[in-house]
């Protein structure tokens, strides 16, 4: 069997990842994330205009007449569908949306209001808070789980890999100005679960090999373990990507951001299981006695 020398590139990819994280943090700090109405508050209206002789600029002109602040108009998936977003003007008036709909319908008789989302400032800040709590909580839960199941060196490796995945995925979203909404939080949590899953499978093998071999250096031992689990890693990532690509291309515009985040997450997560989690074990000089001594104590 061919053995790929993953360990030859630990340093190179370590540097590469470090660079990606720095760039991601830079983007997150200075460009920030493009929060959707879920987290920023405001109103989102999705419309369909049956005749296709309209354009984004025409739709924008019509909506501008209603005096809406921070108005954005975009095509949504095809040239009949548009998404209009703005900050709501008068929160206390329950008739506001209805009046707006009437005004717009006068200009576009063939309009179909497909979706209206209206999120008040209080709710959006709460959603953001609970999103951040959910992500932090899942990271903490993973840390706890892996700490119970493995030695601390393994937990550290796994958690660094997780932070790596989450930061870079969000960094890419910031770089590409992709919208962050509730489903992206779901995607990030799933990425956390998936990346952990991938790391755990390799770690399980590393520990197995550590028990069997006293004399193999951790550098080679991680390499051997990565190789032994490689076909599984590739197969699972591949079938998961097949499913995700199917959602991305066929699942409709609403799921596009979600599936894109997941696709990025799966790729980054698979990479980090190999090139972040394992080098940490090497750096921490994990050896046969890290694993075995502890188990003798137990007995």
């Amino acid at each position, binding site marked *: 069997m061919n053995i790929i020398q993953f360990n030859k590139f630990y340093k190179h990819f370590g540097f590469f990842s470090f660079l990606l994280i720095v760039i991601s943090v830079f983007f997150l700090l200075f460009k920030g994330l493009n929060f959707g109405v879920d987290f920023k508050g405001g109103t989102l209206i999705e419309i369909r205009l049956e005749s296709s002789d309209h354009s984004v600029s025409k739709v924008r002109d019509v909506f501008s007449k209603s005096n809406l602040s921070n108005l954005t108009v975009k095509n949504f998936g095809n040239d009949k569908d548009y998404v209009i977003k703005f900050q709501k003007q008068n929160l206390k008036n329950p008739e506001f949306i209805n009046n707006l709909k009437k005004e717009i319908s006068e200009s576009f008789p063939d309009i179909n209001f497909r979706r209206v989302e209206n999120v008040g400032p209080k709710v959006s800040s709460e959603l953001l808070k609970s999103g951040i709590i959910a992500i932090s*909580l899942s990271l903490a839960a993973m840390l706890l789980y892996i700490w119970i199941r493995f030695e601390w060196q393994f937990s550290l490796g796994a958690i660094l890999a997780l932070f790596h995945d989450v930061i870079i995925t969000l960094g890419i979203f910031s770089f590409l100005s992709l919208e962050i909404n509730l489903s992206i939080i779901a995607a990030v949590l799933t990425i956390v679960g998936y990346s952990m899953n991938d790391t755990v499978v390799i770690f399980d093998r590393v520990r197995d090999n550590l028990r069997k071999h006293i004399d193999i250096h951790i550098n080679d031992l991680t390499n051997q373990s990565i190789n032994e689990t490689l076909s599984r890693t590739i197969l699972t990532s591949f079938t998961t990507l097949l499913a995700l690509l199917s959602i991305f291309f066929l699942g409709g515009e*609403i799921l596009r951001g979600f599936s894109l985040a997941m696709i990025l997450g799966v790729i980054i997560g698979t990479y980090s299981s190999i090139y972040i989690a394992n080098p940490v074990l090497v750096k921490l000089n994990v050896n046969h006695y890290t694993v075995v001594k502890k188990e003798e104590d137990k007995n």
Partner: protein
Amino acid sequence: MLYFSKIKIITVILITIIFIYLSLSNLFKFDDNFLKNKINLGLDLQGGSYLLLEIDNQPIISQTLQNKLIDLKKFFNDKAIVAKNFTIENNKIFFESNPTFIDKILEFLSDKDSDLNPYFENFKTHQYIVDQNENFFSIYLSDYGIVVLNTSSLDQAVEIVRRRVDETGTNEPNILKRGNNRILVELPGLDNPARIKSLLGKTANLTFQFVSSNKNDGFGTEKLKFDNNIDEATVSKRIILNGDNLVDAKPRMDTQNNETIVSFTLDRVGAKKFARATTENVGKQLAIILDGKIISAPSIREPIVGGSGQISGNFTFQSATDLALLLRSGALPAPMNIIEERTVGPDLGKDSIKAGILSLIVGFSLVVIFMIYKYRIFGLIANFTLITNLSLLIGVLTLFGATLTLPGIAGIILTVGMAVDANVLIFERIKEEIKKENNKIIAFDSGYIKSKTAIIDANITTLIAAVILFFMGSGPVKGFSVTLGVGILTTLFSVYFIARLLTSIYIKSNKDKEKLI
């Protein structure tokens, strides 16, 4: 790991058949009473409106404090205690006394048996907290006092909202409390919530009117039915009081004769009106009318002058609670704002279902084809397991009447992609074991055993993420966590029971073949 007892085999097959039946029952109408549960489509798939209402409880707090201030003044006056300079600021009542009375005031305010500052035995706290600094007192609602207030106002508002929504004839509305001051209203199939939104701003009409057989009553009379729609009574058109004068109503146990009663509290204007009317009409029946129907028509036994009264009758505690609730629900307890609104039109919902199912079919087919290409006969086993897994997943969702959302469908597709992971882990391990071990059965067996910890670990991590998402997420995203989480459990079941059973049958009948996997 490859040995199965007969009972186990039968159990596995039985469970599988039941869940396949359940999942198929979503597609076809089976004419039986076995189980009526179906998967519900979320609002994002069937179209509909989602409204989140928030109650502003400040007016209730102010009113409660205002009443307490009056109570206190009256109480101190009766006990000849000097207290002056009463004010309310920042939801606190302030007043001043002098050193001779400080101990006495504190004693009264911490009396656990008095109504002046009720004591909640279960929570070891009074309704009001009393701070005293030399001659100066401040009194404010305790945390639990506020909770009691919020809970009571939320209960009222939900009831009112429910009545209003029911009035519009919306199909299967879902009205839920959220936190301590919010109400969630889900209206399936409603693509324009404008009417509901304006209805929720209106006040229902509650009136107190005398029962009168006298046709010459100066205000005229009207015939009204009782709430049960059978009995009716003639009442005077003169409205003694309406719901606007009502501050609160609560069910109580009358300790004297051990009877359940409903006590109600009126504001100052209402109390005066009520006192005058009841003094002049002892012995008459007073009808309590809500939306043109008589809830009850108790007789006035004696003048009611304290601004609060009680209604006795043959109440159970439940019916008294209901009546109190109805009395309170004369008007919305406090202003409500719509703080979140999401409406999906029916055709976007249909488009989403189409797209979701299409991507499920394509994703599923791609995975199935790939597995056969990669593992041949074991690919078939993995695929059969995958199909059963999907049926189990849908069956479980059906059993619990779960709500399927668009992200929920994404969760199912993701489960398809990730479900083969466990089988792949096992097959790859078996391949390794076969290289070392001549006995194929032992090799398969140890393949299963050695991959077990990795599989369990790997699935638990994803399950943790799903559980957290379930508790923290809202709406459609929650649907994702449900399908993802249930998917993991059905995956483990199908891999360890169905796939293992199939593998063992295959191995036992083909153990002499040169190349098994």
